Each structure stands twice: as C-alpha cells, then as structure tokens.
C-alpha cells in the first residue's frame, strides 16, 4: 500500500530562510520575521441581523466578537475583527479542531444561524513581524496611523500593493495576515524596506 501522507509546504519555505540580512548592528536586528504556520485561521462571517444572537452564543462558549478594530483573547483562541461583519479566529490548533470549536456554540450548524465559518489556514498567511524598528518598517508600507494601532488593536489595510490585516499582539510585534498568493511578494517588500535596520528571518 502506497504511503498517502502529504506534507504541508509554507509559501515562504524558500523566501524565509533563517539568517541575518542587512545592516544588523551590535544590538541585533531591527526587525525579525517569523512564519506562523503553526496557527490555524477560521473566518467568522455573521449576517448583521444575526450578530446579537451569534455574539451571545459565542460568549456562552467563552469567545467574543470584538468591536471594530479590536482583538479579544480567550485562552489559546483569539478572535480579531478583520472587516465589516467579519472576524478571524486564530489558534495554535489543527484547522478542523478550531472550526469544530467555533461551530459547537451554534449546535454544529452555524449556517442555519446566519454564521459562515470558513477555514483560511492555507488561504491566509500569518507572518509575525517584530523588533524595535517595527513601526518604522510598517510606516513604509501601510497608511494606517500606527500611533493608534495599540496592542490588541487590528486594522484592515494594505501594505505595498496587497490587502492585509494587522494585529498588534505586543508593543513591538504584529501578526500580519496576507493572502497566501501574495505572501512572498509582501515578505520581499518588507525585507527590502528592512535592509537599513537589519532583519532576521526567524
């Protein structure tokens, strides 16, 4: 019997090779890039007229649908606002497990309650960007007011050419979500912009 196992491949398997690049000073790199393929991402889309009920159902399970531009953490699961009537649940679990966990509060049939859950663990690429030069780097790509993007605030914006979602997970760290097909282009842009600070592919 043939071995039918398939091994996953990151879209940045070749672009994010470990090492330091650019003007890395004695204090270390200004920016560190890290592939967060360990995270699963499931989008939660809720009809406007069903949001109160959906919020209630999720709160019963310990999750929240945060307001515009914010993130809510609950144990290992974080739910971030990403667009009008749309959130993204993020957890270091298998995609199926996260999907099931989110579907349970809706009796396993979220569609009947105006809620669409869609696994985007492969569709969205999660890139963690951190370091003392984080904001200087982001300012070269995104029109967002970074003063206002405090920890656990999110922004649906663009970097270079690509639409992205930014979630500041710590004062000097963001999780950047970008469509998988654009992941390499986005990383290459960020890497070029980070040359003057020196960067590390972690």
């Amino acid at each position: 019997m043939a071995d039918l196992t398939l091994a996953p491949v990151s879209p940045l398997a070749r672009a994010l090779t470990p090492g330091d690049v650019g003007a890395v000073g004695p204090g270390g790199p200004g920016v560190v890039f890290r592939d967060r393929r360990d995270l699963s991402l499931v989008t939660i889309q809720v009809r406007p007229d069903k949001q109160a009920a959906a919020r209630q159902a999720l709160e019963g399970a310990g999750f929240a649908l945060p307001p515009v531009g914010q993130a809510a953490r609950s144990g290992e699961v974080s739910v971030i606002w990403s667009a009008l009537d749309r959130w993204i649940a993020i957890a270091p679990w298998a995609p199926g497990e996260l999907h099931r966990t989110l579907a349970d509060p809706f009796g396993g049939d979220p569609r009947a309650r105006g809620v669409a859950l869609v696994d985007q663990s492969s569709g969205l690429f999660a890139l963690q960007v951190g370091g003392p030069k984080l904001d200087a780097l982001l300012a070269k790509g995104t029109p967002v007011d970074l003063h206002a993007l405090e920890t656990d605030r999110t922004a649906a914006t663009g970097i270079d050419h690509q639409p992205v979602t930014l979630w500041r997970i710590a004062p000097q760290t963001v999780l950047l979500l970008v469509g998988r097909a654009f992941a390499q282009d986005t990383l290459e842009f960020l890497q070029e912009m980070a040359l003057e600070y020196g960067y590390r592919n972690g």
Partner: protein
Amino acid sequence: MRDLSDTETAPRLTQGGRIDRSRPLTFTFDGRTLTGFAGDTLASALLANGIHLAGRSFKVHRPRGLVGHRENEPNALMRLGTGDRLTPNLPATLVELTDGLVAESQNRWPSLKYDLQAASGLLKPMFPAGFYYKTFMWPAAFWEKLYEPAIRRAAGLGRATTAPDPDRYERGFKHCDLLVVGAGPAGLTAALWAGRAGLHVILADQDSELGGSLLTERSTIDGEPASLWVDRVAGELARLDTVEVMPRTSVFGYYDHNILGAVERLPTAEHGARERYWRIEAGRVTLAAGALERPIPFPDNDRPGIMLASAVRAYLNRWAVRTGTRAVVFANNDDGFSTARDLSQAGIAVTLVDSRADAELPRALTGLEVTLHRGRTIVGSKGRHRVSAVTLDDGTRLPCDLVAVAGGWNPVVNLHSQTGARPRWDSIRDCFVPGQPRQNESSVGACAGRFTTAEAIQDGAHAAVEAIRALGKPVPELDLPVPEDPPAGRGEALWYVGGRDSHTFLDPQHDVTVADVKLAHREGYRSVEHMKRYTTLGMATDQGRFGNVNGMAVMAEARGLSVAEVGTTTFRPPYTPVSVGALAGRKRQRTFMPLRRSPLHDWAADRGAIFAEAGLWQRSRAFPQAGESLREAAFRETTQTRTHVGICDVSTLGKIDIQGPDAPELLNRVYTNGWKRLAVGRARYGLMLREDGHVMDDGTTSCLAEGHYHMTTTTGQAPKVMSHLEWCLQALWPELDVQVQSVTDQWAGLAVAGPNSRALLQRLLPGVDLSNAAFPFMGVGRYALAGGVPLRLFRISFSGELAYEVNVPADYGPALADKLLELGEDLGAIPYGLEALDVMRIEKGHVTAGELDGRTTAADLGMAGLMSSKKDFIGRVLAQRPGMADPSRPRLVGLQCADGDERIRAGSHLLPTGTQTTIDFDEGWVSSATWSPTFGRHIALGFLKNGGERMGEVVRAVDLVRGHDVQVEVVSPHFYDPEGTRQRG
C-alpha cells in the same frame, strides 16, 4: 583705505560660519576639481572658490550667476552625478556638498564661459513674450519638418539620463497631531511647545540643519548667539519621544484633508534609499516656511555678482564666504543696513544705495566705512561674466564686484495657496500674506508677514497652544525666549527701476523682462494668470519665487490698479522639484505590480516550467524537456494527456465559498440557468451575465452540503465575480441569507485529465468508489487523506477528456502533485501547462478569455439554451434588446484550413471570399487558434456573422498586420469528441 592682504580678500573667511573646516570635501564643477567643507552647499562651495558664473538663461543664454541661497535660486541649476546617476535641474543652493560630488552647469555649449548659443542674444528683440504664439506659422509644412524639431532641440534646461535609475526610492506614511513646516524660530518654537505637551509632532525642514534664518543672521536670543538657542532646542526636540524631526525634507504639496506630500533626501547608506516620499496626514499644520527676499529689478540686473542681499548675508554668516570684495548694497528698506553692516565688518568696502530719500545710517553702522547714496537707484551695470560697476540715476559710477539687492520680503504662501486659500495683499508690509485658511492650518512668523524673530517666536508658541487646546491637553507654562533683533524694517515699495525695460529682468531664468509684462498688457493678457502663461514669468523650477510679485506690480501699474487688485497667481505642487523616482518609489520594473504565486509555483519552477502572466498570476505554460521548444513541449503534453494522464495546476481559478439557506436563490439570480434542483454532491456549469446582457464569466458551482456551495470562476474574472456577488448581496438583495467569501488562496487545484485519470485517482483514494456509476460526470465528493487533510473532488472536464479537479488546502498542493506523479508513473502521468490546456480546450470547443471578451452574448457562444425562460436573472432583460438578440450576430464557429494546412492566426478578420479586404466586408474574427496535435492540422475558434447557418462555407481569415490571408472552412466548434463520450465515460 589700506590695501587688503590675500587672506583678507579670499572668498572663504578663516573663521566663523557653520562649516566644519576639519572636514574638507573635494568635488568637481564642469570638470574642475575644487574643495569645500562639510556644512557647505554646492552654491556656497562654488562661491568660496570664487565662482559666480553658474548657468545660462533659458531663452537667450545670457551668463547667469548665483543670486539666492535657498529655493529661490533661479540661475544655478546643476546636473549632478555621472553615468546612470544623473539628476538635472537641481538648484546648487539646495544641494548639500558631499565628497566626490560631480556637478555640471547646464544649457550651454561648448562651455559655460563661452556658450555659442549666447549669439541668440543678438536676436533677443525678435523673441518678445509670446513670440512662439506669433511665429512658426508659415509655411504650414515647415512645422513638423523644421520648426518643431528645432524647438525641441532648443527647449528644456538639463538633460536627464535615459539609463535606468540604479538607486532605490521608498514611499511611506506618517501621521501626526501637528506638522510644522520650517524649522526657523517660529517652527522650532511651535514644535518645542507642542512636543512638551505630548503631541505627536513632525518638524520638517528642507535644510540639513535646523534654525532657518537664525543660521544666516547675526541675531541673539537671551543674550547669546541665536545658533546656541537653536542647538539647545534641537537637542531637546531629539529627546522628546513624540517629536519627529525631519531635516532634508521638503514639504512640496498640500492636498485635501490635511494630507501633505514631502520628500526626504537621505544620506548615502549601503542599505538605504536615496529619497523617500512621505504622505503625511496631519491633524493640524503650522506653516513656518519663512519669507524670501525679492529683487529690485533694474536695467542690466542679470549680471553675475548681482545677488539678493539676504543671500550675501547668508553666505557670509553661515558659510563664511565673502561673495565680493567691493560691494554696492541697493535697498528700499532697512535690511540694506544689516547687509552693509555685515559686509563692512567682514572687511568689504560697501556703498549703500538707498532709494528712500530720507534714509539715514543707523547707529549700528557708526564707525564702519559705509558710504550712503540716499534717494538714488541703480540704472545700469557693466561687466561680462561678473559685474564690474553700476551707474546710479544721478550718473554716479560705482566700481564693484558685488551688488546686494534688498527689495523687501515675500512670505512663502505657496503651501497655504495650494489648499485653495487666497493670499491677500498686505498694503502696510507690501506683500502677499496668507488669507483665510481652508484647511486646519495656520501660518506663523515670516511666513505670515511677521518678520522679526520676536514675532516668529510668539507666533510659534501661539500655534502650539492652539494645537494643544484643540486636543484638550493641558497647555504647559510658556516661558518664551527673548530675541534681540532690530524692529521690523521700514520699507518703501520699489517694484522696478524704470529706464531700459527690455533689459530689466523679472525672471532671469526665462529672460522675462519688465518690457515683456508691459507687452502682455498691451496685447490683452492682463490677468496675472494670462500674463504668467504669455510671458512664462515664474515658470519651471522658479515657480514664481524670484520676481513674480514684482511682475504683478508691473502689471498693476500698467493697468492703473493696485497689486491687491490684480492679485496673485495660484500656486500648485510641487513647491520644490521632486524626482520622479521618489514619486514612483518601488513601483517600477518587476515590482510595478504584485506577483501572485500559485501554491505550485516553486513546484513547477523546479520542473523547468516556463511561466506566463495571467493577470497578476504567474501560470506554468509548459514543462519543456531537454532540447524541447515551448511548442513541442505543449504538443507532447497534449498528446500524453489525451492518451494517458496529465496533471495541471488550476489553483488560479477563482473559488468562492457560498453559505446560507438562500444560496440556491442567489445562484438562480446571478446565473442564466436554473439552480434550484442541484443536489448535494453535484456540480453544474453556469453562465453569468452583466446587467447589460453580455456574458461576464462562466464556471461551475458545486453543492457540497445543504446550503453550502463552491463556485469556480475563470482566473481573470475572479475578483470581478467576487465583487459582483458582494454587490448583489449588499445592495440588491440584502434579504437573502447568504454569505460569500473568496477561498481562491485556500485551495490548491489540480486538474487530472486523460483516460488514465480515474485509475490514478483511485490509487490516491483507494476506499472511494470512483466508477462512472458511483461518481459520474459532474459528480462532487469530499474526503480526508491521511492525517485528516481534506480533499474535494470534482468530476469536471475542460480538456474534453475523462477528467477531475482535485482541491486540497494550498499548503498540501505541492505534495499532492508529487504524489499524483509518483502514483501515476506507470500510467504515464506527466505535468502539463497552460499551452496544452489551451490546445485541448480549443479542440473541444470550450470558451475562455478569447471568447468571453465582454462583447459576446450567450447566443453568440452557442449557449442560448442556458438562458432560462422560467426565472429572472441579471442581464435577462437587456439581453433581449434587438441588437443583442439579432440572429445574424457573429456566432461561435470552428475554423480549419479549406485547402492544405496553413496557420490560422488569432485576431484575423473573417471576410467572404471574392470581396475586397475592407471593413465593409468584415464578418467576424478569429478568437483562438492552434495547431492541433490530435488532428494534425491547424484549427481555430472564431465568431462569424450568422455563423450557425454557414457550416461548410469557405471564408477568408485575413491578418493584415502579419500579412496572412488564409481560406478557412466553417465547421462546428466542437472538433474533439462532440458527443462528449470521453468526458462522460
């Protein structure tokens, strides 16, 4: 008067100024190697080397010297760099001197000193304002052949390189509570107090140093030199976390919503960019850009050595450069005294010519050797490449090598004007000052016509307080420094000295004279906007900074009005020259557009794929083997797929997840055919129309579960279909309980096609019954591979073969492709690309972008049967318009050579045989064409008028561009397996 030593007459002073004499820098100017110091500009370094002659005028190539020290320099435009790093038209006053700088003067040949085109000066009387509107008219044929080429050769100043720019440029975004433009006394004060209150402040100045006018004047603050106060403030600003100081940053444009454009020049760095364009969004803007001195135009005022007095003082005080040894200061206001004082104290003989009859030397000049000619004006000058003497209106001749002209001040109202606000005339100060703001901005200090340092500091503090209060923050206690500078200078307007108007220059860059403005008036161009365009006054890099106000005053006089009544021209961005590279940033060459990579991109590249652009995507065209051409590879892949099995990356097809109980209703409304009865586990082909009835896109949609569908679109139309669905749900039918989301990137897609495809997939899914009965054509299944990897299987065919499409999460795409090739090795499995796919779909008669070109209807494509008559759908009504429903419209047909086998080219026009090759006989076009390895001949798809009725007819496929005219037979578009037994088998 005693004779002066060499040291005392050398341009560079042995002490003073803000240059670093311990850091000499070498540079070249027109091939001459020269030295300067760190802290110099190119202009100050040239003057320190005794060089005044720095350029030639645009029209008549008269010798031009440096006149200013800021962005108001009209003459010394330089070309910097060498090889492919060449930047033309940079004012030498704005160029920071660096070691190894290479500068060249412009608009001269063969040299700056001896320019042959200066002979055109003899013809100057023939080139009055607007001469090009009046000449070059006859004979008409000469325009293209002689006049235009000659004018083009003569036009322009510097020449740019045509080589690609090797430097990097960046763009970025900044946000702040307060943007302060200009770091003179007003700007520094505003930034400091706002910063102390915790506001996010950006302080931008185009200079390399903070300080503005305090760097060039001998003023004191709190009893010590102003430069010490500047250094202290700069130090504190650097320590304030919320303040960002941006030297070398020119704020060049002021746009709506308090958004401003700025370009930051960056010091050379190994990993850095050369320039960075910033889009600054400011809560409030304080304009503290200062004021520019204006000239007093007099006859022959364009000789090198005739400079603005403020520049003469700046070069002396900031850069320690004596710009002459024997000076005449010509003034209409008290600034003449400051200039005379500074020059005299530097050991320069000074004669002060003051146009005011009641001028008296102030006490500050007591004891200095300054001769005053009050109530006099200069009416002429002598000298060729440098002024040697001036003549006064009483006939006095004054030998000199420097004339410092102080004509009063023009506040820099440009950015204020760019907001749409109208500057107003201040008849007390005789200058345009900012009018009523239209955006959240205010002008302060000299920028607002308040010229003393004390006023500037008060204004800056006031601007900070306003910004702090607007944000509801506590205002820090103000403890403002006390400057000791003379009270605001008294002046008496003198817009020009009459006499020889044709030699009295208002704009030395473009050779615009007082006579030109008066001519414009006589010829009816009396509005200042018309006058500007007719005379070219203040155009190009000057942007009206030098002599525009004087020009307006000349026009006012000619019209018998006041300057306030004639008004000013509107200022537009950019305020200072901006390189195109900075505006483009990284958006050039490969990075002009983003590149979208399929999950199998690297996988295909590893297998030698040749890629093709498909929108933003890169798709694999073919996988040539050693020695194979692209064409040979495509035909091999076609044949192997048709006889065995091939796998093709179709991940780029649009995929849309549709969920909700009303999903069938949505599909019914957006597709032309019926969708209410599609069962779970089945797929259906659908055609989507635009509202105007033309076909927008096609694809399949599969029912995965009750209320859960998976729609596919063509690669190119995926974003359009997605936004179309969003529009329908948000704007047209918000009552439908459906949600859509793009999952194009989530799923890798592989087409598995060919007679062995079932056997191959059976090996991947050993527990699944894939027999035709259990998994028929248009069947859909969802499975899990080892480790729970989800897999979606669709039995659909674009090639016309027995075929499937397999979807797995994108991360698993490369592994799945490898696995399929491994499992199918003995079945003859190969990868195939876009070219083979195209060959096969043409053979099958399937349509794609060539046919779905936005102009075709369902009936044109032979799909009238898919237009349901039992329901409404988008595009139904307008598709019934007479022109759309006309049976004689071009219809999809197949085409093959009528005789022999000649190549048929896509894009050819279809004409009846025996007619002239004219548009009158055009009956259609060839949309797709290929050589068919399956049939061993060229075949094509096309649209032919009334095509369905013309099977068997021979027509001409004419390609005039490439010189082809082929006789083709009209046949069914379905060349391959028209009954569909293979794909259904």
